[in-house]
């Protein structure tokens, strides 16, 4: 089985800098692979363990060339890594990302299964998997919480709002998996040493014959949310009587 697991390189928002006008700068933030994408890579790695091939695929700007980050991905049971790199892709929305990913999957040729995470760590629009499938004309399911290989494809469990479906999916197909599907592996020293020997390929948009995606919506500046002013009366344990009096007033007056 030839599998592609999609991942996104995002900024680590814990280090973002907020200006007085609430605009944010993410330049100082480190890079990381989205948490949910690690579930997609792990799902692919487990399916590929019995003689399959797993390509980790990403699209983005220069950030996706980060060597440490690549090594981290390559140490997670993948056969190789492919990146589509263009400066415009750093801020690509779900539609543009899906367009480029679909073209890359087509170019990889003979792909049986594309696995995506439940959502990206920055936008979390939960759209890319569905749109890649629609562009490729492939069957698609989201919220996959269990995957088994069957004689003629896959049998999966899909956990929705209030119902669990068991479905037979023919290949090729695209799946978006939940974070509960698996626990991403912690790479061993052997995995990390082996990662350096695995192939990484970079493509440009021109290599794929894809025009620069035009954003479907004009986006304004990214800002920090307006924070609501709160009273902030914090007591130490020794003053717990005052705390309890205040809490009783809050609950008694407002809630009962």
């Amino acid at each position: 089985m030839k599998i592609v697991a999609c991942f996104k390189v995002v900024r680590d928002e814990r280090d973002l800098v907020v200006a007085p006008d609430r605009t944010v700068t993410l330049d100082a933030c480190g890079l990381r692979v989205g948490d949910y994408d690690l579930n997609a890579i792990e799902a692919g790695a487990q399916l590929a363990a019995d003689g399959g091939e797993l390509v980790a695929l990403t699209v983005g700007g220069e950030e996706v060339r980060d060597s440490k980050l690549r090594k981290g991905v390559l140490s997670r049971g993948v056969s190789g890594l492919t990146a589509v790199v263009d400066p415009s892709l750093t801020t690509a929305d779900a539609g543009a990302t899906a367009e480029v990913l679909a073209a890359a999957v087509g170019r990889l040729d003979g792909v049986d299964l594309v696995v995506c995470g439940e959502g990206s760590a920055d936008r979390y629009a939960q759209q890319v998997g569905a749109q890649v499938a629609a562009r490729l004309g492939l069957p698609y399911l989201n919220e996959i919480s269990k995957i088994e290989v069957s004689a003629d494809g896959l049998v999966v469990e899909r956990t929705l709002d209030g119902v669990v479906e068991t479905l037979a999916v023919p290949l090729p197909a695209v799946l978006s998996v939940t974070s509960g599907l698996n626990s991403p592996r912690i790479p061993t020293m052997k995995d990390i040493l082996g990662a350096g020997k695995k192939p990484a390929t970079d493509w440009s948009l021109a290599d794929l014959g894809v025009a620069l995606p035009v954003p479907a919506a004009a986006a304004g500046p990214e800002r920090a949310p307006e924070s609501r002013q709160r009273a902030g009366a914090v007591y130490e344990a020794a003053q717990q009587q005052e705390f309890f009096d205040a809490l009783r007033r809050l609950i008694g007056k407002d809630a009962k």
Partner: protein
Amino acid sequence: MKAKRAVVYGESVGGYAELCAGASALAEEVIAMVVGSADQASAVAELGVAVRLLEISEDVWLDDCWPALIEEITALQPELVLLRAGKRVRALAGRLSVATGVPVASDVASLAEAEAGFEFGLVRYGGATEQASVAPSVIAIVGPGLFAPAAPVGGGSVTTIDAAVASGPIRLLSRAPLAEESVDLGVAEVVVGVGRGIGSVENVARAAELARKLGGELACSRPIAEGLGWLPKNRYLGVSGAVISPKVYLALGISGQVQHLVGVNGSKAIVAINKDKNAPIFGHCDLGLVADLEAMLPELLDKLA
């Protein structure tokens, strides 16, 4: 300028009142798509909108209806599509977006008419940042609470969509109700939230007792539901979980990560107890106590009961 036409769709009848209210404010004509029974269509028509019904029996797999539904929506050429947030609906949205070339705005924080279409607010990094975008046309996924529900005024209509629903390549083998108690955190006036600092399953049970005594609901942070599995997933607050606005939110052992705060920022009062005096939650609360919950939970039960 007000848009000409909006189409709304939700998986269950309950979501339409809010969608129809929002759509009516933003477009001159509102068409509600219903996939299900004639009874469901009539219930939605009570909201005073034109309903188009794709009638199916209960044994039909809903995803098999998407091609017919998408064809119907595409032919109407609406400037605005409002979809009630739901897991299945997200897959529909992506497919509809590729079919129409209209972008999807997932879980919009705001939605209003703009000079050239619509302006919608989206959050990034689980609420750490937000961004406003403008597009001439949009497919918006709308969670509960964005629009106040429309009152049933009657006078709507139901027309049936004449389309065949055929099985696609994916086959539904079986389905089972999710063994998860239903909980509506959104309506509780008091919500007790537990985070990693709660320390033990025994303390979670004490927090549950406290919530019960206060006539409220128990909720948690994502790690409690997903990492530790101490509470079901429908009880976690914040990004991809529930968003609440109770009168009092009592945060027990919650550190106050932005991903959690985005779910509770609407609370009238936030009260926090945490043994770490540097926990970010203390910067976002109305009332706080720096204390160990092991000792404080019995006190809470005693003094607030």
